[in-house]
C-alpha cells in the first residue's frame, strides 16, 4: 500500500511536469534528425517502403485483395511500431537518463513519459501512411472511425505500464533490454499484422492468448469500418487496470532503489 502511495505521488508529479517531458521528448527527436531536411519523415518513408514490400510479397503469397490487405497491414504496422518501440525504448528510459536522475530530484516517471511522447510524435509522422492508404482505398464506414481515439488511448496506457515494468528491471539487470527486444520481435510475427487472424485456422489460439492482438484490434478495427467486439474491450481494459496497479506497485516498491541502480 505504501508502495502504491509513493508511485501515485510520483505519477501525479510527473503528469504535472508535462512541459518537461514533452520538451525532452522533442529534443531527442530534434537531436536524431538534426540538420536533416526531412527529419522524422525519413522514418515515414522507410516504413512506407517496408509496408509496400510486405504488401507486394505477402499479398501475392496469400493471394490477398489489396483493397483489404493494404489498409489492414499499414494500420497494423504503424500501430505495432508505436507500441513495441515504447516498450523496447522504455527499457532504457531510466538508464539513459541516469545523468538527470543523479543530479536533479525530478519525479521519475517523467523519463517513461518522455519515451512515450517521443514515439507518439513519430507515430503521428507514420500515420501519414495510413491516411494515404485510406485515401486511396476509401473509408468503409465513418461511423466506427471516432472509436479509434479511445482505442489508441487504451493502447498507449498499456504500452506505458509495460514500459514502466521493463524500464525498472532493466535499470537493475542490463540483459533485459536485449531479451525484451527479442521478445517483441517474436511477438511481431505472431500478432496479426501481416496476416488476418482468421487465416490461422486451427491455430487461432496464437491470437486468442496474445494480449497485443487485442490492443492492435482496438485501433485497427474502427479504422477498417468494424466495431471491436465487447470481448476485445473487456480484455484490453482489464489489462489496463491490472497492469497499471501492478506497474505502480512495482515502481513504488523500488522507487528508492532507482538512483542506486544507475
Amino acid at each position, binding site marked *: 500500500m505504501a508502495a502504491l502511495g509513493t508511485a501515485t505521488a510520483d505519477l501525479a508529479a510527473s503528469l504535472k511536469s508535462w512541459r518537461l517531458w514533452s520538451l525532452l521528448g522533442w*529534443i531527442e527527436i*530534434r537531436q536524431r534528425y538534426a540538420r536533416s531536411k526531412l527529419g522524422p519523415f525519413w522514418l515515414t518513408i522507410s516504413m512506407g517502403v517496408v509496408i509496400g514490400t510486405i504488401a507486394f510479397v505477402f499479398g501475392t503469397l496469400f493471394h490477398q485483395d489489396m483493397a483489404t490487405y493494404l489498409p489492414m497491414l499499414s494500420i497494423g504496422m504503424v500501430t505495432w511500431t508505436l507500441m513495441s518501440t515504447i516498450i523496447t525504448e522504455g527499457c532504457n528510459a531510466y538508464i539513459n537518463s541516469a545523468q*538527470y536522475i543523479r*543530479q536533479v530530484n*525530478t519525479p521519475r516517471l517523467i523519463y517513461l513519459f518522455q519515451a512515450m511522447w517521443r514515439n507518439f510524435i513519430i507515430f503521428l509522422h507514420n500515420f501519414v501512411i495510413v491516411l494515404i492508404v485510406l485515401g486511396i482505398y476509401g473509408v468503409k464506414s465513418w461511423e466506427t472511425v471516432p472509436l479509434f481515439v479511445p482505442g489508441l488511448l487504451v493502447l498507449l496506457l498499456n504500452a506505458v505500464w509495460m514500459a514502466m515494468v521493463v524500464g525498472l528491471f532493466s535499470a537493475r539487470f542490463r540483459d533485459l533490454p536485449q*531479451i525484451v527486444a527479442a521478445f517483441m520481435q517474436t511477438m511481431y510475427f505472431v500478432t496479426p499484422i501481416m496476416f488476418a487472424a482468421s487465416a490461422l485456422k486451427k491455430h487461432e489460439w496464437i491470437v486468442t492468448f496474445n494480449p497485443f492482438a487485442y490492443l492492435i484490434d482496438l485501433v485497427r478495427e474502427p479504422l477498417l469500418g468494424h466495431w471491436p467486439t465487447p470481448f476485445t474491450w473487456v480484455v484490453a481494459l482489464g489489462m489496463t487496470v491490472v497492469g497499471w496497479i501492478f506497474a505502480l506497485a512495482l515502481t513504488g516498491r523500488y522507487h528508492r532503489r532507482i538512483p542506486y541502480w544507475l
Partner: protein
Amino acid sequence: MTTTSITLEHVGLDLPIFDVSGQSLKKRVLRAGRRNRIAEDNAGVVIVRALDDISFSIEAGDRLGLIGANGAGKSTLLRVMAGIYPPTAGSVRTQGKTVPLLDISLGMDEHSTGRQNIRLRGLLLGMGDNEIRSKTEEIAAFTELNDYLDLPLRTYSTGMRVRLGFAISTAVDAEILLLDEVLGVGDARFQEKAKARLEGLHRRAEIVVIALHSNEAIRKACNKAIWLDRGKLMAMGSTAEVTAAYEAHVARG
C-alpha cells in the same frame, strides 16, 4: 507556517557498486545453479558505506559549508539532502523548496539555441513557464551573449557555455540551495559580475549548503561548517572552530 529547515537523524547510506557481473541477469541465473559459496561471494555486489550515522539540523539563515578530503562524502550528503538518494538508514526531513546545483551544465542540448536551453534548464530546475518567461530577458542580459542566444549551443565556446549555464542556474529561487563547489566562471571581468550574482543568489535563499575544498572560501561564505571524513561526521560547529580542527588534522597528516 513552517520555517525552512533540514534535519538529518542517524543517516547512513550504503552505495552498491554493481560490477558487470552483478548487474547481469544471466550471471544471477547461472549463480542460482551453483552450490559453491565462495563463487557466490565473489560474484556478489560490493557495498560502499558512503555516509555513516550522520545527524544534524540547520534552519533558516544558516550558511553551511561541507569540508573534507576527496571522497569524504560531501557530494553524497548534498544528494541525500536534495532527495536524490534516499538514505538507507535514518531519516532526512527538509522543509522548503530545495534546489540542487550540482552540475551547472546538466541538461544542455547541443542542437537547441541558447534561449531554448534557458527554457529546458529552467524546467529541470523546477521553474514554471511563467517564471521562465519573466526571467529569460534578465538571464539573456547577464550572459552578454546577445545574438548568439539564437544560435545552437554547438556553436558556443566553452566559456560561453559556462556563462549560459551559470546564468540560468543562478536565476533560480530556492529556499534551500545546495551547491557543489563554487561555481567558477570564465574570464576575470566576468568573474566579478558572477560573484555579485552569486551573492544575490545566496541572499534569496534561506539556507545554503556548499561543498568546498578551500577553507578560505568557507570562512567567507558560511557561518557553520561540517567536517566529513570517510562518510563520518568529524565535527560540526562554527566555521572558525571546524576549519581550525580540519586544518590541524591535515597538518598532522
